[in-house]
């Protein structure tokens, strides 16, 4: 070990940059001694002994240019070992070498996060550094993307909460100077917002920050939205009113498919509206995905603790039901801050299972329940729960043949409640009194233990009243008309559904009252109606719309988004046939989402894809209408006229409808050729669509496909009257010819395009210059020979990316 130390201490010239790798290889060597498998140079300092750390630190101390590189070491070796260097750090900070200065910030940052107070005096120098940075006085080498040394900047801003006038000025300056077009500019802006939220609030800065946030939130990039949400969360602590402008954006983020964004969005939400919404979502999720009852109950307990007031009453009931059906052990949460629903649940559980384990006596529990009822003396529902719980406990006591002694406070509570203004409470109080006065078997039958959610058979038809009804009819009374047969009445089942929705959201309803219904379709549930409109052209579209709208209006329901989509399809319906247009557009969108490669390429493909399909579909009615054409088609394709119709339905079945899939049924011959060329079974061919999308985009077979369709169309119309067998070969010729041409151009030069796929660079340029991405892609194809060699190597190495093997 000593020679290593010597090495560190030796006064070797470290001025040239490439001296460093050598030193590093020393470290590497050392590392390997300790850990034969070790290759992580960076880990080394973690395992250095204390004296070695000091040596590292000493290395830092002398006036050496590249010394700043070693701050990384110093940093890892822990604050304690460098504490004696703080003075040195401070000197460095005011020095004129920007590299050293920047590097010093790192360890200082660490030290400060450990102990804020002792470094407050540094704020001034930090601010001055920041000012330098903002005024671009630092040397050019630190510029990155035309922004002065953002990393110094970024590291610096988060440090201190001390407010100062100067800081306001500087931060405001940065706000103005940062350009928001590059990532790093936005990063600095974000740090600025963090800084603004940390220092003493300044209205002007807050305004600027709010502007930046709104820009973030409005941007299309999910990354910026994420940053915006995060920044909003920080700023909201200072000025909640900022959030109000962005409520919609936040809700959008919540509905985003992106998990990260969703989770981030949960954080800043602290006003009631969001809370309600989020709580309901939490409940929904936990209901759906609960791994076990235990977990569910714990989660629900947490939800109640945080937002008990805002949770739908039904949820509490569901929880009770679950406890009743599952197991009964849930009275352990004795938190100081219990919300309404939580209290109710606890009351209920105590009533149902409080005495079941025999740990607490009935009188003890009833006493507690009385206390609860008193504590919530202005809340009738809590009192109701409490009284019912007391009643249950007494009932169980009676049915267990134990002697019941009613506590005086219970007595007084019951008396008070029986004189209550609330009829519900009165009723419960009387019931309680009645139950107490009964004997054990009777109580047993009306209050069986642990049977609160047992199914009680209810005779819905009220058959025991039949005799009475019969009598009345005989006396000349009108017979009863079922509700849904009375014309002009609204569909009750529909409405109860909507009411649930509204109870969830408390949202306003903007649509007009529904039209009076015709008698028949009222029994169909709303979902069925919606789907039927999808499949069949509905005679009264306005009515169908009426039904669907309330379901899609509240932002809560999961179905809402999809419903919205459906409505969009309704708009589309103008253009094509209603039947298949919606699935087609759906599938194309999912196609663009699912694909594994570059975004822009796929998008272009899928749009062209859907375009062809659109045009195809707009022509389809013709094909269907005239039977001659059908006959013609069947003679053309040997009874395969059905496949002619199948593509769209096939597409709509296979969710990741891809390019060959849409190509194949329309051009059966071409598909056959396809398979011949590839020697691949057709299912693979279908899968191939995702991978080879770039190939597709470069040659764009759909253009040709479109042209092809045009030609066949022309041919078909030319042949319209005469089903001449002589003409068919011609058409076949056209068909085969075009398809082959299209195909050959798409398969002809597979290697370069294939190589393109691997090309990180092309994707890279995608990022920097999105607009040009496709052009570069075309230009960048290296020579096939090169890629052939690489391909051979790939096979040797066992690296077999799917697309390559499939195409070559």
């Amino acid at each position: 070990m000593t020679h290593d130390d010597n090495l560190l201490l030796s006064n070797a010239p470290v001025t040239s940059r490439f001296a460093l790798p050598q030193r590093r290889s020393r470290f590497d060597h050392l590392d390997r001694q300790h850990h034969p498998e070790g290759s992580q140079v960076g880990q080394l300092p973690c395992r250095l002994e204390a004296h070695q750390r000091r040596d590292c630190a000493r290395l830092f101390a002398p006036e050496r240019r590249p010394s700043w590189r070693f701050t990384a070491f110093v940093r890892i070796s822990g604050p304690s070992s460098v504490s004696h260097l703080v003075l040195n750090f401070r000197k460095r900070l005011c020095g004129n070498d920007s590299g050293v200065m920047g590097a010093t910030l790192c360890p200082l940052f660490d030290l400060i996060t450990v102990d804020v107070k002792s470094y407050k005096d540094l704020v001034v120098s930090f601010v001055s550094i920041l000012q330098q940075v903002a005024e671009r006085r630092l040397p050019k080498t630190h510029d990155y993307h035309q922004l002065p040394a953002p990393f110094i900047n970024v590291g610096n801003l988060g440090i201190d909460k001390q407010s100062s006038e100067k800081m306001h000025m500087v931060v405001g300056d940065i706000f103005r100077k940062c350009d928001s077009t590059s990532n790093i500019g936005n990063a600095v802006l974000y740090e600025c917002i963090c800084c603004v939220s940390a220092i003493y609030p300044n209205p002007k800065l807050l305004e600027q920050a709010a502007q930046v946030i709104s820009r973030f939130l409005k941007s299309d990039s999910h990354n910026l939205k994420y940053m915006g949400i995060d920044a909003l969360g920080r700023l909201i602590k200072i000025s909640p009113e900022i959030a109000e402008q962005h409520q919609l954006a936040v809700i959008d983020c919540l509905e985003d498919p992106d998990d990260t964004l969703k989770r981030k969005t949960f954080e800043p939400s602290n006003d009631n509206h969001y809370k309600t919404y989020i709580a309901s979502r939490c409940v929904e999720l936990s209901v759906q995905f609960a791994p076990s009852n235990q977990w569910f109950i714990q989660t629900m307990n947490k939800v109640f603790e945080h937002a008990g007031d805002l949770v739908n009453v039904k949820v509490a009931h569901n929880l009770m039901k679950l406890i009743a059906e599952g197991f009964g052990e849930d009275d352990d949460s004795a938190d100081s801050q219990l919300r309404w629903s939580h209290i109710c649940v606890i009351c209920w559980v105590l009533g149902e299972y409080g005495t079941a384990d025999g740990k607490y006596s009935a009188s003890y529990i009833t006493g507690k329940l009385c206390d609860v009822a008193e504590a919530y003396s202005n809340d009738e529902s809590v009192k109701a729960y409490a009284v019912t719980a007391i009643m249950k406990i007494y009932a169980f006591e009676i049915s267990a043949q134990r002697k019941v002694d009613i506590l005086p406070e219970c007595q007084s509570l019951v008396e008070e409640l029986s004189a209550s203004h609330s009829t519900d409470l009165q009723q419960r109080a009387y019931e309680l009194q009645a139950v107490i006065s009964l004997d054990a078997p009777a109580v047993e039958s009306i209050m069986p233990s642990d049977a609160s959610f047992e199914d009680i058979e209810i005779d819905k038809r009220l058959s025991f009243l039949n005799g009475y009804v019969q009598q009345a009819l005989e006396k000349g009374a009108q017979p009863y008309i079922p509700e849904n047969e009375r014309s002009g009445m609204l569909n009750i089942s529909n409405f109860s559904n909507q009411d649930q929705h509204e109870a969830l959201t408390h949202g306003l309803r903007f649509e007009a009252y529904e039209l009076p219904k015709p008698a028949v379709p009222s029994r169909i549930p709303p979902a069925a109606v919606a789907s039927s409109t999808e499949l069949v052209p509905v005679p009264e579209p306005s009515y169908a719309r009426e039904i669907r709208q309330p379901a899609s209006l509240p932002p809560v329901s999961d179905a809402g988004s999809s419903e919205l989509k459906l409505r969009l399809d309704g708009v589309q319906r103008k253009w094509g046939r209603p039947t298949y247009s919606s699935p087609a557009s759906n599938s194309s969108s999912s196609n663009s989402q699912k694909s594994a490669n570059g975004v822009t390429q796929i998008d272009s493909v899928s749009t062209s894809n859907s375009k062809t399909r659109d045009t195809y579909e707009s022509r389809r009615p013709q094909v269907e209408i005239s039977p001659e054409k059908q006959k013609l088609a069947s003679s053309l394709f040997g009874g395969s006229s059905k496949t002619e119709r199948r593509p769209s339905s096939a597409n709509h079945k296979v969710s990741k409808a891809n390019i060959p899939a849409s190509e194949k049924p329309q051009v059966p011959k071409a598909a056959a050729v396809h398979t011949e060329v590839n020697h691949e079974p057709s299912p693979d061919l279908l899968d191939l669509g995702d991978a080879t999308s770039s190939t597709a985009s470069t040659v764009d077979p759909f253009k040709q496909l479109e042209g092809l369709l045009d030609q066949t169309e022309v041919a078909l119309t030319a042949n319209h009257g005469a089903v001449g067998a002589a003409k068919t070969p011609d058409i076949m010729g056209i068909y085969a010819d075009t398809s082959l041409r299209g195909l050959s151009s798409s398969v002809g030069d597979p290697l370069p395009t294939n190589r393109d796929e691997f090309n990180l660079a092309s994707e890279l340029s995608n990022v920097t210059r999105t607009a040009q991405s496709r052009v570069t892609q075309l230009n960048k194809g290296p020579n096939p020979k090169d890629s052939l060699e690489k391909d051979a190597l790939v096979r040797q190495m066992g690296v077999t990316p799917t697309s390559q093997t499939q195409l070559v």
Partner: protein
Amino acid sequence: MIRAVMVINTQGKPRLAKFYEFQPVEKQQELIRSVYGVLSSRAENVSNFVDAESIFGPDTRLVYKHFATLYFCFVFDSSENELAMLDLIQVFVETLDKCFKNVCELDVVLNYSKMHTVMDEIIFGGQVLETSSTEVMKAVEEISKLETASNAISLVPKSVSAWRSR
């Protein structure tokens, strides 16, 4: 501080894994696996930030970027900025691109050590050293020159002798 850098291909094979805090190899593999599990299930047009706390413990974030067949992911703590990290990935890939001229996964496989050199020039000990890809390129070229020069001499005592003679 940057905790880890990983480059994983779309099949789940790690191409580069660098952990700036000590992790036993088994743990490393497990982390890579779980990161891949998360990344591969993410949709195309979502943000590049992933909640990594369930994988790497508290106060960690993960930023990733998908290039062709490779995922580049950086794991770091709250002292770094997500967008800045995203740009750092960009710098890294740009540098690789300059290094290999149209970099592809195969380059990364075949020139494993070079990739490491580039990585070490950009991040060291969990700290960002250099953000300019031209600077990094200069350094990498110097290193490779040095390597080819010293390859002529014996391999093991290289560093010491070269060091002493200076």
